[in-house]
């Protein structure tokens, strides 16, 4: 049972790495990857919480929640990726970092 408990910490680590990546990375695609990492980490912790040695003891509710979560994350990722392409296409840069320099130059959009 103790080794199963390890997955808690790997879930936590994934969440932390995802959070750090989401905030720190400059490329939008990498931010979306990091977001997916975060949700995987959370799902890991949820499923470990539901673990039971044999079939009867397993709690199915977190499994249902994780399934819903996976579908939610793929739909958000799909919209995010389309938006990244649009942002790249019209404002010509995928890095949020560069946007602040552009704004300091005071380009006003209507």
């Amino acid at each position, binding site marked *: 049972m103790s080794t199963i408990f390890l997955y808690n910490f790997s879930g936590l680590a994934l*969440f932390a790495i*995802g*959070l750090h990546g*989401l905030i720190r990375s400059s490329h*939008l695609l990498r*931010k*979306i990857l990091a*977001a997916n990492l*975060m*949700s995987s980490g*959370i799902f890991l*912790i*949820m499923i470990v*919480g539901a673990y039971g040695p044999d079939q009867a003891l397993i709690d199915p*509710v*977190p499994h249902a*929640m994780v399934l*819903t*979560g996976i579908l*939610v994350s793929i*739909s*958000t990722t799909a*919209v*995010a990726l389309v*938006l*990244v392409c*649009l*942002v790249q296409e*019209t*404002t010509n840069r995928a890095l*949020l970092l560069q*946007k602040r320099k552009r704004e300091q130059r005071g380009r*006003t*959009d*209507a």
Partner: protein
Amino acid sequence: MPDTPFWAVCLVVVPLFFAIICFVRSSLVTFLGPLAAWLNALAGLGMTLSFVHSGPLRYAIGGWQAPLGINFSIDGLSVLLVAMTAVTGLSVSMYAKGYFSLRIGSAGEINRHGHQRAYFWPVWLLLWAALNGLFLSADLFNIYVTLEIIGLAAVVLTALSGKPAARLAAMRYLLVSLLGSCCYLFGVALLYRSYGILDMTALSRLVSPAPLLWVSLALLTTGLLLKTALFPLHFWLPPAHANALAPVSAILSGLVVKASFYLILRLWGEVFAQVLPFAAYVLLGVLGCGAVLWGAVQALLQKRLKMLIAYSTVAQLGYLFIALPLIRLDPGPSAREAVILLIMAHACAKSAMFMAAGSIFLKAGHDRIDDLDGIKEVLPVSSFAFVLAGVSLMGFPPSGGFLGKWLLLGVSLASGQWWWGIMLVIGSLLAAGYVYRIACHLLVFKASFSSRRGSIPPVMEWPAVLLAVLAMILGLLAGYPLGLLEAGCPVPIHACLEVMP
């Protein structure tokens, strides 16, 4: 007369159904969308009336009782917010109907705005259904899914306007919403792990101070603060609300931001009220003060009308967070009533303001504040609506905003912690500053005003006026809606709890 559960179900099912039909039959969207809006408002009205008769109740979806199944807990707070969403949503829908028909009217524009309209209605109806679902539901994970729909729909609506600035703002909004949802989900997961319950009312009974509780509460609240754009985490709101289409900004500022604050109010006001230390409330209150000051200062500096209104949303949200410690301090119901009043008044006033700003933008061709002199001659009704909404935002008497501020001031002075009250007064002074910065341009007379051809249809101007007047009347008739609040103290869980070991 169908009973409350019927109306509650209608509030969720009807907009979903019409969203699907609008998507499939996109040629009928100009007729189906407004029809759905009217039906929604009707359902909201029906719900309020039947709630007045039958009082609060819990509706088990799928027939399964609370801990296992998902329950709607219909109490005063949720009914009031559903009614607010119905009213604001209906007027924004009417405005949108006029807005798109105006923009599509000129033949050259048939394509892009036809496309925008075809996708505005289904996404907006989904957002509306999710808002109703969120206000009614009492299950934490179910609220996660509704929050997700609201976030995603809001992002899609923001990006609908197609401008580069709008797409960038939508991107940033989506990332923040993703981060917020992850934190919220993590909080829910930890709560479920340590208490085994997802239903809020049941949870409020079981919860006891534990280290994991503080961590999960911190995560839940961070997630919700990200979505409510409280002061340090507000950077994404102004560009998103300012660059979106006019009806969309009204929806975003008026309703979407309220959904996550409603949750904070529920969690901090009811579910975890006994467990949370007062210092946590003070922290939120201080952040609220920061939001009031920062939002107002930024609003005073803005050059663009819609950016100014967006920053004023940040400031007005600060008010709501200042009220949280007061709710904890105040033994009586008046602080809670004040918050509800402020929420409803702000929803009406802010949507009216954005709608009026939209009409002004269309007529003037730009929204630079300093060049709006004399628009009063061209758009008398919209400028009147804008100023009236501004009055309610400033918290001037007879308006709902004033009454909320007055009650909070009373509570803060009575409780001895007078600084919250003083902060409110300073905030409303600053609000007067940035509202009058626009009002002085809207009220001044100038013979000639260079404006675009084509007149703004009445269906675009009158919803704004109605909402602004409603925000004022909320102050005079506050007794009735707040009476509902008393009837609806959260319903205790009945026998089903025993099934838990």
